[in-house]
């Protein structure tokens, strides 16, 4: 615990491993770490598979390091649904920073979790925050529809799109339009980038009202998403992206002066933890002492129904 707070890489890495593997000790350490969180800026990077997220993160690391800020990266890749294994390939694009002590890159596999992150990414971010990293960059898996969880976790969400892949249409379907604070139209060395930028701006303009009224979204009031062209393989447009990130950060910090805004964020953070806690508790209750087996038996012999049984199981949790 002390070691983690002193930013001991080895201790931090091991704690992350326990969190990832769901080892019991991790929870009590997380509790103690919580009071040390709240300082890091958390930036989510999401977008279609292969849009250039990792290459962009690589560029962002370089820029933040030039500003003498320390950077932690959480890079999530999908687990194979067949073997449960994974090849975690984001890091290879950031390997230039392997020896920089001001950078900590950690790869995770989704292990079946949907939504673009792992089941414990929020905890992982807390650890990095408590360790005192100035920035935590969270790269999601390539998102499809509904995989927009990162936005609940990040202070600033960057959506990376590549032109000419039908991403624009995909964006509306996936609800990506609503989650982005900043759009990076990457690979703009290819044809079609200007068109993508135009279409995005148009759609944002049309959807202005809806975006600002989003219930779920806790974002600085009055912020309109920026659209920026980048070529992350060549470092083009990254300065502009950094400017937009800084502006959004400022807007976010301003918003934090408003107790209502802070309350909304805390409320959401709590609900996320609550949901996970409830699920974990419920799950382990069912898995242990034949509880699930009994449930299934009752269903099979027709003596009860799933609704009643689920409610009984939840009630049983309270008595534990």
């Amino acid at each position, binding site marked *: 615990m002390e070691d983690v707070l002193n930013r001991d890489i080895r201790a931090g890495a091991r704690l992350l491993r326990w969190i990832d593997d769901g080892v019991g000790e991790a929870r009590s350490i997380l509790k103690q770490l919580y009071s040390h969180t709240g300082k890091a800026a958390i930036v989510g990077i999401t977008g279609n598979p292969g849009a250039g997220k990792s290459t962009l993160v690589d560029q962002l690391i370089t820029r933040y390091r030039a500003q003498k800020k320390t950077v932690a990266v959480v890079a999530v890749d999908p687990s194979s649904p067949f073997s449960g294994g994974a090849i975690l390939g984001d890091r290879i*694009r950031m390997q230039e920073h392997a020896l920089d002590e001001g950078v900590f890159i950690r790869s995770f596999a989704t292990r079946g979790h949907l939504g673009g992150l792992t089941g414990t990414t929020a905890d992982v971010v807390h650890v990095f925050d408590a360790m005192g990293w100035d920035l935590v960059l969270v790269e999601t898996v390539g998102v499809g529809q509904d995989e927009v969880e990162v936005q609940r976790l990040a202070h600033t969400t960057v959506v990376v799109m590549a032109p000419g892949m039908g991403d624009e249409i995909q964006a509306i379907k996936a609800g990506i339009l609503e989650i982005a604070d900043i759009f990076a139209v990457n690979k703009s060395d290819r044809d079609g980038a200007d068109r993508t930028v135009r279409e995005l701006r148009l759609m944002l303009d049309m959807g202005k009202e809806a975006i600002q009224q989003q219930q779920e979204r806790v974002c600085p009031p009055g912020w309109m998403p920026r659209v920026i062209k980048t070529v992350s393989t060549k470092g083009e447009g990254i300065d502009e992206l950094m400017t937009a990130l800084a502006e959004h950060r400022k807007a976010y910090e301003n918003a934090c002066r408003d107790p209502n805004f802070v309350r909304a964020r805390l409320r959401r953070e709590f609900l996320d933890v609550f949901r996970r806690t409830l699920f974990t508790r419920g799950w382990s209750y069912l898995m242990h002492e034949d509880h699930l087996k009994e449930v299934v038996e009752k269903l099979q012999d027709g003596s009860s129904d799933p609704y009643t049984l689920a409610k009984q199981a939840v009630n049983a949790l309270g008595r534990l």
Partner: protein
Amino acid sequence: MLYDPKAIDAVKGEKESWKQEELKATLDKRSERLPRFSTISDKEIPRLVTPDDLGDSEYTKKLGMPGRYPFTRGVQTTMYRGRLWTMRQFAGFGTPEDTNQRYRYLLDQGQTGLSVAFHYPTLMGYDSDHPRSLGEVGKCGVAVDSLRDMEVLFDRIPLDQVTTSMTTNGPAGVLLAMYIVVAEKQGVSADKIGGTIQNDILKEYIAQKSWIFPPRPSMRIITDILAYCTEHVPRWNTISISGYHIREAGSTAAQELAFTIADGIGYVQAGVEAGLDVDAFAPRLSFFFNAHSDFFEEIAKYRAARRMWSRIMKERFKAKQDTSLKLRYHTQTAGCSLTAQQPTNNVVRTALQALSAVLGGTQSLHTNSLDETMALPTEESVTVALRTQQIIADETGVANTIDPLAGSYFVEWLTDQLEEEALQYIQKIDDLGGIVRAIELGYPQNEIGDAAYRYQCQMEKAEKIIVGVNRYRMDDEIPIPLLKIDEEVERLQVQNLAEVKRKRDAKQVQAQLKKVKEAAHDGGNLMACFVDAVREYCTLGEIIGVLRGVFGEHKDPGML
């Protein structure tokens, strides 16, 4: 037509009756050894090829005469009756002193050309004292850091009498510059030296992966070299467009042919776009192929390559001189075909592969030594390898006539087939927008990956046989003696480098490096700067370091 239509009809009739009678009867009695016969590249091979399978092609258009368009029968008029191929063993290990000794031994044994294998730090543009060179110095080739090492490497070897091939890509220009200055110091002017630099960066991205700069600046350096050599080093082969490594990475024969020629098209295109006259530089392009184990497929590959290249140069690039149309090539027997099991068998493999290269009409040849899958060759093993070539040249009689397999129905058929398959790949690459784009998209890399995987599976299921590995294994094998590179080499080399740095004129060094940097920025000819810089003993690592600063580095795209 190759054959008279009436005669063809007769052949067809005869073949049909043979099929109905003898063949049917035989197959009824006993089926063939395999359900499907295929080459090592998994290309299906017919039972019998007869003249009617060859289509309605004209002899003069398709085969012609040796030394004449389309060069199917060879690029020289008298081929090996005039002069044998150059026997050129790829060699290099340890310090320049060690390798110089090996070169002089090989020349004494009747080798007719030199071929330099550099160690990895040199290939990647690092000096021996760089942290990344740790453990690598002198291991897979000879260490060359500065002009001093090149002087030692060619000590007592007259550069107006041998030709030298240098396998190097990213730093090719710098090493050629060193060679030019060494010759100059021997009193041999640049227009008198001959040889080859590999300088084929495209295949590095496709297969070999010893890259330094990203593709586009790499192409710029290459065109600078083309321009410089056209003017000052006219006998130098400026690019050796290499299929060898593509094949070693697991490609099929047709892929090797296709991607190599597509790379060639890429270079010619770049030269033309840089404003060079195609006939000024195309004659100095040469090729480098693999000699794998499937005997006829290899011979067909070389013959198809010559025909394809001459047509492409003439039709696509409108080259006018005969010398621009000729595909001249070096061959190396397939390293990947050698086995660590029962290594003596490698001598036999290499001999047959070498024979295919000669029957295919190669201009120069390296034969692998039997121990090369395990280490760099010992003096004994390299001697056997060289003798293998000498036996083919002097005992077998295959060099007595030109292109002896021409007119074999099977060989001509297979030549046509490989050409057709390769042209399809080239079409696909054109459709993607050219070879540089195709590489960026990972197209050739993926095709090769798939072919390699297919072969691996066939091998594990013993559908493809490797003697001593998946058939005819032996348990107790006696290990053979191997060449060991002493860790002392690294210390010695680093010490010599420090000595060079102490003795040279530091001001001159800084001035020359500055010039390199300026040329890199403003588009001046880099090759000219390299020559001036190495003369002042700027090291390879220093020069490449400056270029890294300007051009950036190519990163491993990490495709799985």
